[in-house]
């Protein structure tokens, strides 16, 4: 049964990028490519061989693989309704965050390994935004841990009881924050436009500029997996744990679908932030998570 959650997450990871592209196309009045187009692109990339620049070292060759592996292992932690993830222990959300951090770190140093100042610039910005996003995630999960007195992902989500308006507010703010964290981590709008190739404004795209072939395919797959990761976490907020298994499967699929559509809508109707505004915007999210923390202290009547 735990495997079922994992399998559903993998399936949704394959479909989410396609749904996002279709939503964006429909919103612009275009017909759009098919849902499976990103999959075909990934398949094409995986068949090709790699081209490695002569200035790079072994780090550039192992970076994407470690990144992909870290995302897959992180996916093993996400619970599915009343079933634990394939890996679950106390305080595993800390391990989860730093696992994703290892992946990101490998990407950053592999970008710097190419010796291009251009990629270094992108890596620099990516590092800054990840650093600013970290407190949000920890404060949010920490508040939930304080609320439910448990500390593993599975226990946290199973034991949240929606008994007052305040917990609904906390859940709503939590979903919003996870949504925005997903946008930041996946380098989507309003932080970074994946379509822009204006040199001074690229962040993630410029980091992976030198990767090609199999590595690039892995990186694209990892993007989809990260979407599924956050989609799974958001779905957990919304699952009522008492429902039957089939109902939970349906809820999971619906939430991921809605998540993809929401991402597509947000991207269609929003302009990308001015670069100087990005740290400010992420700091705003930290303040919102601080308010979640204060709400939780209010509910539990505990002062640290």
């Amino acid at each position: 049964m735990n495997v079922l959650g994992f399998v559903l997450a993998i399936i949704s990871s394959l479909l989410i990028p396609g749904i996002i592209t279709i939503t964006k196309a429909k919103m612009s009045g275009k017909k759009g490519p098919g849902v499976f187009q990103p999959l075909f692109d990934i398949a094409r990339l995986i068949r090709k061989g790699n081209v490695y620049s002569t200035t790079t070292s072994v780090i550039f060759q192992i970076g994407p693989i470690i990144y992909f592996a870290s995302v897959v292992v992180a996916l093993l932690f996400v619970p599915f309704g009343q079933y634990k993830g394939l890996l679950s222990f106390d305080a595993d959300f800390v391990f989860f965050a730093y696992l994703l951090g290892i992946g990101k770190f490998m990407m950053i140093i592999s970008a710097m390994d190419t010796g291009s100042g251009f990629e270094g610039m992108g890596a620099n910005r990516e590092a800054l935004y990840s650093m600013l996003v970290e407190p949000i995630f920890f404060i949010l999960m920490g508040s939930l841990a304080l609320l439910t007195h448990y500390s593993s992902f599975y226990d946290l989500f199973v034991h949240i009881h929606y008994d007052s308006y305040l917990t609904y507010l906390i859940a709503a703010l939590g979903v919003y924050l996870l949504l925005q964290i997903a946008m930041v981590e996946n380098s989507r709008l309003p932080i970074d436009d994946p379509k822009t190739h204006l040199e001074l404004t690229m962040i993630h795209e410029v980091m992976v500029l030198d990767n090609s072939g199999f590595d690039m395919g892995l990186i694209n797959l990892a993007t989809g997996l990260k979407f599924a990761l956050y989609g799974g976490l958001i779905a957990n907020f919304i699952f009522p744990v008492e429902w039957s298994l089939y109902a939970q499967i349906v809820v999971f699929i619906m939430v991921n679908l809605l998540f993809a559509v929401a991402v597509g809508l947000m991207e269609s109707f929003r302009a990308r932030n001015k670069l100087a505004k990005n740290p400010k915007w992420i700091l705003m999210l930290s303040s919102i998570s601080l308010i979640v923390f204060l709400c939780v202290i209010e509910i539990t009547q505990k002062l640290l």
Partner: protein
Amino acid sequence: MAFTLIILLELTLLYLAFTERVKRFIFILMVQGLLLFGIAYLHLKQVNTLEFTFIVTETILIKGLLVPIFLNRLRKKNNLERLAHSKLPSFVSILAISAAIAFGFLLSEKIHDNDLQSKFFSASIAAIITGIYFVIIHRNIFTHVIGYLIIQNGVFLLSLAVGNEFPLIVNTAILLDIFVGVLVLGIFVNRVGERFEEMHIDELAQLKD
């Protein structure tokens, strides 16, 4: 439910720190007016009907509609700039207002009360500190008026905390304050706008030794 609305009020204060456009400030004032209407409606249960309708109409009409419309008209008439330039960057403002919210919360914890009044107090102190911070940071007189109205919102929130016992006098005082605020300040913003073209507070700095 009232407490949830109070938390939403604190979120609007954070948004005030984040945004730079003058139009958004007025929009936030309108949202705060609506939230205050909700809090007033939900909290004041023990007041008799006449005073209750007075308070509720006052909140939603004046705070929620008339004051923002009046400010918008002033803004268009004086052709204000779209962006409000402040002396400190927005980054610092967000940190400062988060600190103010945390401070209000800690202060209310120190009061050792379990009932709703200390929660009202924390949000109102946060709003008052935000309003005063706003007045200090910005240089335009129009934004000073907006900061003053945020202070008014904070004071009104606190008056709702005792609204059940002392209904009419307290709310009449609030109404008087709003009249002073908007009418007198509005008149002066017009006069000052006529005399000094840019309405910068730096122009009004000549009374020194």
